């Protein structure tokens, strides 16, 4: 197997006496799109700042294509393109002047490459306008263009969908997928909205209070047996609830004459049979698929900031 694009090895960060990142480890492979999900204040941006060398690590190490960000900063940085938080550019310069500015900072980026990334993100028309006049969506695109100038192996995008309209998000989604598949770029996308990036990710890491609490393979959830949210309208509900517990070992909640529980869809005919056999009237059964989103909330619980 090829070298991992990026490795985090027990990364910790203390600011003052507070531990903001409490030992995060994960590996991202080449050509993989990795979603970095967590509620506000979870530590996504802080982790990303350490990945790109803006912040020092308090402990642990980050390797980019095998180069340690601590000891081989230049080699590591050569492999990274990033937007950290907002895509801020020089407002008094045109889009093109901004790109040329960054191009001059990396050896080997030609004028042709600058034009290439401009057309890649579809900014040909406004590229000579001052960035101060750009909309947020245009600045996001310029930010991505800037990050791609030197053909990095790892692209890090902190909340790239922030402020984009649905069409813009869809566009970024297709674009990122094609980058990963065609150019074998590893992409890390952070977001606090799982639904926005779920479809473009191969894997998702969930961070909460500075800890990585789960890594989920997106395609896995489709393959594995579906756990569904099941609602049964039955009378008497209390008796039905006891029956499910005693006969099928299912914990359910009684809510206004209905039972609510999670289980496999395949079990439903059997459950109905049990209920009917015990003289319980079943009026309605409805099933909703538990999405990754529900799992996400299951995992992070309430959105509390420590």
């Amino acid at each position, binding site marked *: 197997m090829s070298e991992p694009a990026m490795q985090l090895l027990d990364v910790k960060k203390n600011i003052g006496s507070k531990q903001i990142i409490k030992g995060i480890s994960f590996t991202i492979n080449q050509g993989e799109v990795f979603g970095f999900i967590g509620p506000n204040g979870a530590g996504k941006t802080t982790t990303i*700042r350490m990945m790109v060398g*803006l912040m020092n690590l308090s402990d642990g190490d980050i390797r980019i294509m095998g180069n340690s960000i601590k000891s081989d900063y230049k080699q590591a940085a050569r492999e990274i393109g*990033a937007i950290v*938080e907002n895509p*801020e550019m*020089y407002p008094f310069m045109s889009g093109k002047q901004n790109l040329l*500015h960054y191009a001059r*900072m990396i*050896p080997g980026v030609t004028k042709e490459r600058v034009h290439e990334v401009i057309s890649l993100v579809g900014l040909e028309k406004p590229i000579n306008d001052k960035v101060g006049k750009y909309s947020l969506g245009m600045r996001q695109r310029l930010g991505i263009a800037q990050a791609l100038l030197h053909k990095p192996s790892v692209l890090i995008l902190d909340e790239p969908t922030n402020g984009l309209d649905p069409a813009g998000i869809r566009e970024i989604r297709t674009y990122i997928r094609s980058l990963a598949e065609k150019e074998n770029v590893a992409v890390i996308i952070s977001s606090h909205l799982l639904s926005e990036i779920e479809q473009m990710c191969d894997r998702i890491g969930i961070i909460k209070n500075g800890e990585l609490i789960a890594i989920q393979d997106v395609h896995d959830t489709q393959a594995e047996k579906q756990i569904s949210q099941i609602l049964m309208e039955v009378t008497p509900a209390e008796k039905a609830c006891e029956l499910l517990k005693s006969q099928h070992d299912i914990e359910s909640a009684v809510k206004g004459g209905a039972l609510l529980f999670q289980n496999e869809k395949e079990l439903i005919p059997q459950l109905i049979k049990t209920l009917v056999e015990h003289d319980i009237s079943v009026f309605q059964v409805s099933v909703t698929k538990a999405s990754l989103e529900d799992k996400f909330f299951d995992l992070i619980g309430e959105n509390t900031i420590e």
Partner: protein
Amino acid sequence: MSNFFKLLYNEQFKIYIRKSTWIMYLLLAGIIVTLAVVANSYGELNEKYQQDNWREVLQEENNEINDTLKKNEDSFVSMQLEKNNFHLENDIQPREYDAWQFVMENELLLSLVTLFTIIVAAGIIANEFKWGTIKLLLIRPLSRTKILLSKYISVLVFAFFTLLFVLLFSWIVGALFFGVNGEPSFVQYQLGNYAEASVFEEITKGYGYQLVTLLMMATFAFMISSAFRQSSLAIGVAIFLMFAGNSIVGFFADRSWAKYILFANTNLEQYEFGDPMIEGMTLGFSISVLAVYYIVFLLISWLFFTKRDVAGH
């Protein structure tokens, strides 16, 4: 283009593309033209000495001065008398005011150049933080030291260009208003006597001495900008110190450590007349003190810029 030169180019580009920089240059140009107009209308241009009879003109002036002196003692006119006598005794015709002398007198504009350099130095790091662009600047495969150095050198390059602009523009405006004389020299009061001095030498010295303050205060503002990431603070403190410097020295003059205050040492001209601000100071002493301050300023800038996290606000 070499790597470092490209960084310098970037920094210069960011300085000169901004309107505020152009306003600085327009201001300087405006002041230079105004000074020329004022000198042309009210200044002493020595035109009356340009005929062959300049000795008689001087003599006549002396006679008039002697008349006034008989009525009441006035040192100002008696100095004019001394100066006229110097011209007569040494047979030196007073030169007509020209572009070179205009350039020489404009050395006072250097405090404005210093002010502008302080503003640029204060902003060159702090503005990147203000704009948020520091994040995109520091994720490049370049050491922070190199980026810092490109910024510092850029400040000096800006000062150099601005100084050059003042010199050139003053000379051009001076030439248009007053013409140019070859071999410029003038007569000035020096160490209790009148003597002829070369204008070139005076320009070099006059501008040169002020460059010390420029360099020290710009580096100081650069340091504050690097440490606090805040340009208004850097501008405020640097300008305040620049103007209050002499008063600070005066205030602490009787303390034993007063001679180690930066501003006791920035004016190297004090040694030309052998009368330093505080007794016992020498040129070598001042240069050493300045060097220590300079290195400390740069070291602090470097420490803050390279070691500190770029975190959110």
